[in-house]
């Protein structure tokens, strides 16, 4: 435990909270949390100024471990809770941690509307392609044909592309990485935190214990290798021949535009009303 990044992460953990954590061995959630903490640290954000909000799910258990203002809410609703926090205290850096089910199934409506508003939230979607916490039912991102406990004969549902969904709904910063690419994940979370507006960072992750086992993906190391081998950076997309990019997960910053952010628009409204009144 001598190297610096580990020490950094350690210093952000709550030591009054009884570890061990709830996650299975080999789960990617810890890697994502590490990336998130390093991103906050590198930006030098004060701990008092960070609020971390989550829904329900394995991934949504992250907040309890970190020394920020932390809010573990109900299934699918992290984003509206975060909306309330941010709108009342716009100076806070509000990070939402959510799973693929939490964010795009039960919370799908909140997700698209938050994107549309362009409220300054940083949403980290940990996409493990399954409902982990409840034991492996299929989610909106479980690949068609895959096995889940509620699709024992193979999933017949088409999937959501979380980044496409965010882009289509109006998020102004959208990026995707994987738990294998933890430094890249860290970089994207950092960029998302810096971005003034709705940032969505999808981090494809491994649930070896349930999704991996049900779909014979091997253990955690094998799933890590699959993330490495089955993904390509968006920058390489145009340079490679189609046969090399087909079926690959595209990583990178997929959208980044500057647009009026919600709390700024609201403040502008308040200011203009004040001016009108003083006239």
């Amino acid at each position, binding site marked *: 435990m001598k190297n610096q990044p580990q020490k950094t992460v350690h210093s952000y953990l709550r030591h009054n909270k009884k570890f061990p954590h709830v996650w299975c061995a080999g789960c990617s959630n810890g890697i994502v949390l590490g990336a998130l903490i390093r991103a906050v640290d590198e930006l030098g954000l004060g701990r008092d100024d960070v609020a971390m909000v989550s829904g329900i799910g394995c991934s949504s258990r992250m907040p*309890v471990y970190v*020394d920020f203002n932390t*809010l573990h*809410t109900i299934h699918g609703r992290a984003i509206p809770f975060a909306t*309330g926090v941010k709108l*009342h205290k716009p100076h806070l850096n509000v990070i939402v941690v959510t799973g693929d089910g939490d964010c795009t199934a039960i919370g799908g409506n909140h997700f698209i509307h938050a994107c549309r508003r362009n409220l300054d939230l940083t949403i980290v979607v940990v996409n493990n392609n399954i409902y982990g916490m409840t034991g492996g039912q299929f989610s909106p991102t479980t690949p068609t044909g895959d096995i889940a406990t509620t699709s024992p004969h193979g999933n017949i549902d088409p999937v959501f592309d979380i980044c496409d969904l965010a882009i289509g709904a109006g998020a102004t910063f959208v990026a995707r990485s994987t738990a294998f690419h933890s430094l890249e994940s860290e970089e994207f979370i950092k960029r998302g935190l810096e971005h003034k507006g709705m940032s969505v960072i999808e981090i494809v992750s491994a649930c070896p214990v349930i999704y991996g086992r049900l779909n014979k993906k091997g253990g955690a190391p094998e799933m890590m290798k699959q993330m490495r081998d089955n993904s390509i950076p968006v920058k390489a997309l145009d340079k490679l021949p189609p046969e090399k990019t087909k079926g690959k997960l595209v990583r990178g910053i997929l959208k980044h535009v500057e647009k009026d952010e919600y709390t700024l628009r*609201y403040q502008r409204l308040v200011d203009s009303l004040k001016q009108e009144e003083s006239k």
Partner: protein
Amino acid sequence: MPKKTTKKTTKKTEELDSIVLMQGNEAVARGAVDAGVNFFAGYPITPSTEIAEILSRELPLRGAAFIQMEDEIASICAIIGASLAGAKAMTATSGPGFSLMQEAIGYAKITETPCVVVNVMRAGPSTGLPTSPSQGDIMQSRWGSHGDAPAIVLYPDSVKESYELAIRAVNLSEKYRTCVVLLLDEVLGHMREAVRLPDLRKHRVINRIKPTVPPEWYKHYDENQKYLSPVASFGEGYRFHVTGLAHDATGFPTGRPAEVADMMARLKKKITSNIRDLVQIESFHMEDAKIAIFAAGITARSAKSAVMMARAEGLKVGLLRPLTIWPFPDDAVRKMLKNVETVIVAELNQGQFLREIARLIKDKDDSDIVPVRRVDGELITPAQILRIIKEVN
């Protein structure tokens, strides 16, 4: 259905002492503002929409937040989030939206987060009769959320009282750190009455107490099970944890039976040991009454008229009207009904208050508790109650 938009007002302060013609919904919005509500999130639904419309105009004028969310679930979640960040937060809805909010109301209760939900009741079930009155949510307001936690629910019978109880709802939510529900009748929400608004200075506005201990000592929940305990907000140096999981006094999740029991006891005791502070009940001509009517909200208005009509004919009739319906005023009701022979329970539902009265009165026969019900979207009239009075007399 097109609605008349209320005229634009630019002045923040209006002469509160003068007599004004006002709708119940407007009175609630005014009460909210005067109680210090500075965050409102909502989703339009008849017959509560005017509350959102008025606050969308008034809150930005005060630098406070109004947001129209994508649904009622989002609305209640947003107000809880805002409250944790230090806001006095409110939402307003009607039956269908109130049902959607139930899970999060439980979250506000277990996390002891102050907030106010106004439910302007309409006739159900389901879409029912959107513009008709009903008292169908008496039990939903008590038992609607899963799990088992007490509720504070207030219920006015006039426009003026809507204003007062809106203030009281906000105050009680801050004081007891919980979600307080304000029930309103559709008719009252939309009815205009001439009211002389009470002097604001007479209204105490209760604010949360901020902690003074160093952050390392801070506990988000009060182990001593007092109610007015200091509470921190996000972003003020106390980096506490909030979860809907069972938690200990620090806020961290726990599965230890003793700690879970403590938490559950605290949620219950802060209500049950402060009944005197919470309960308000009006008794009208009860001193010598042989027949008592139990009614709340708009039905109590009819009942009051019926009492006067009956008294004019020399009948000894009185009225009991709870302003706080939950916690139910058990002791007061028991005491006041002790000497009456018959209790008429009048309500716009199939018998929700009736169960409570029957639970409390063990010394009377079933035939001594007489229901007057109406569930067709119309009000119970004074004449209807008077008829029953004469029948039982």
